[in-house]
């Protein structure tokens, strides 16, 4: 009887142990499944741009057990959420945690640099971008970030140096455009033109043509300016904006007949174009046709949509009177 009882209690103990093992395994399994589910949900919110919900999930995830790399990943995403909703202090905290877990991961350093840049901590941003480049020599974002900061600081030669490095990594029209802007700031018009031409060769657009013609006209090279504007016009024959710039360049060159012809073409297309009337008034005045000029400027004044053109027309009329 006692023996049976002992066997029974032994069996019971075994069963209890087995149940415990099963329950704990099940618990661990559930917890694992739970944290993976949470992670999936967090990532889903993150990719869909719902950073507030993602943030809640990532914060919950920090209570689970993860490897160092996984923790760093969670902090990275948590930081990115904060950054996207402009909570820069929290973003810095999270990115710092990620860096402390994975100091050799350049992405963590890049994230920090980006937030430092956004919050105006320029020197720290430069330091971090340089750190990224030490870890990953050919990192486009870090080079581009350095270029952007130096350009903002007005240190154009340093900005150009960094932008040029990005061209080696991944050339594109936008970078040529910003390099051109830097040269423009240093009043190196020739290089500004050269870089903008490169941008046009990669991705032609009328705005670049117009700006290129502006750069040439600054150097008094009106023929070249006219040539580029003509190319832009042949690409977009109905662009009133390009036509007006072409008329203005011809006006500066002293080609009054061509200017008038172009302005008349614009007015045929859009008789209410106040700028065209205004310029026609100017040209006529330069040709000593005062009465014709007055008529056109009056039209410009009545059709003007901007205060500036209204004021300019009124000033001119006042002077003519």
């Amino acid at each position, binding site marked *: 009887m006692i023996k049976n009882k002992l066997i029974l209690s032994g069996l019971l103990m075994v069963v209890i142990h087995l149940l415990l093992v099963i329950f704990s395994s099940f618990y661990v399994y559930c917890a694992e499944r739970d944290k993976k589910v949470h992670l999936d949900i967090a990532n889903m919110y993150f990719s869909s741009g719902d950073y507030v919900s993602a943030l809640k999930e990532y914060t919950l995830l920090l209570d689970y057990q993860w490897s160092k790399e996984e923790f760093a990943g969670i902090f990275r995403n948590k930081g990115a959420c904060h950054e996207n909703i402009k909570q820069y202090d929290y973003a810095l905290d999270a990115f710092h945690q990620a860096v402390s877990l994975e100091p050799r991961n350049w992405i963590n350093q890049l994230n920090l640099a980006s937030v430092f840049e956004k919050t105006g901590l320029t020197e720290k941003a430069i330091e971090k971008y340089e750190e990224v480049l030490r870890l990953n020599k050919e990192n486009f974002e870090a080079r581009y970030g350095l270029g952007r900061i130096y350009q903002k600081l007005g240190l154009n030669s340093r900005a150009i140096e960094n932008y040029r490095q990005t061209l080696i990594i991944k050339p594109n029209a936008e970078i040529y455009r910003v390099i051109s802007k830097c040269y423009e700031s240093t009043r190196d018009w020739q290089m500004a033109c050269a870089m903008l031409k490169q941008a046009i060769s990669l991705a032609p657009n009328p705005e670049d043509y117009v700006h290129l013609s502006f750069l040439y006209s600054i150097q008094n090279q009106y023929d070249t300016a006219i040539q580029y504007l003509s190319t832009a016009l042949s690409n977009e024959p109905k662009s*009133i904006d390009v036509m007006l710039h072409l008329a203005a360049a011809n006006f500066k060159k002293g080609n009054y007949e061509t200017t008038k012809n172009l302005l008349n073409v614009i007015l045929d297309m859009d008789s209410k174009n106040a700028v065209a009337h205004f310029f026609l008034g100017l040209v006529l005045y330069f040709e000593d046709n005062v009465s014709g000029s007055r008529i056109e400027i009056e039209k410009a004044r009545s059709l003007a*949509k901007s205060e500036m053109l209204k004021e300019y027309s009124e000033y001119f009329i006042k002077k003519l009177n």
Partner: protein
Amino acid sequence: MNFRKTKLLRLTILVILFLISPNLSALSKEIDEENFLTQYFWREVITLKPPERPRIGLVLGGGGARGLAHIGVFRVLEEAGLPVDIVTGTSVGALVGALYSSGISIDRIESMTEEIGWSDLTNISAPSVVTLFLSEKLLSTEKMEKYIADKIGNKRFDELKIPFGCVATDLRTGEKIIFYEGDVAPAVRASATIPGVFTPVEYRHRLLVDGGLVDNIPTDVARMLKADIIIAVNISADFTKNTPSNIMSVLSQSISIQGEFLSGEQLKLTDLVINPEVSDVGIHELWRSRECIDAGIVATRKIMPKLKRLIIDRTYQWTIDQKVTAGSRTIEK
């Protein structure tokens, strides 16, 4: 019946959309009048030289280390391509203005400020300061003159690339002394010699000290040098926050109060004032150069659209005035 009505309504909407679509595309092609005029007349500002356009004068106020903000101002003006035809300054404004007017690049001037300390400009040292307080022997700014002469190469005013003028005070007569000819270095030294700390500069039988005593923002000098548009850089301190507790701070406070009082009048002559936020920087805090330069950059960038518009408007009026005057002359003939 309802289905038919809905269909008819949909069809009508489609027809209306079709009819107005060309007008919509025409609207989208509409040009931005202001943008176009700005671009056109800005090109005139950059390409024309006076007297074909108005002369632009930049007036740099005094204020010790705060004046390093002037460097930031120059940087942004250069960046925008805005031409500066005349420069005037008082004290540190005279110093930065002279360097810039001589043709030294803004990069170079900026790197010079990173290296500079009071010991480069004066004979300041621990023993000299003790002597100043104990035996009332003032410090010397002789080094400043040498420094400027070295940097700009012993130039005279008429040899500078940009017409430049600066102001000092005659300690004997209280007169405002305007420098726009002769050697640049002694004039700048005199303009930046803080009374009570530095020995007055003897120059052509006059005993000269800092121009800030009589004219801290020399807009009238810019006008005298024929500037048509005057832009001033005001770097005055917020002296209401200070509690003067020793001779030096009482002196500095007194100069600030007087400077502020005089600046009010002078600023009335300006077309636009740039106000870098440096009011908490002490006149002696040269080590805060980066902060001051950045403040100059920020303030100028902030005001740049307004500044551009002002210059464009005035250039336009100038062009029309000239053309109309020339036209009426032709008619008279």
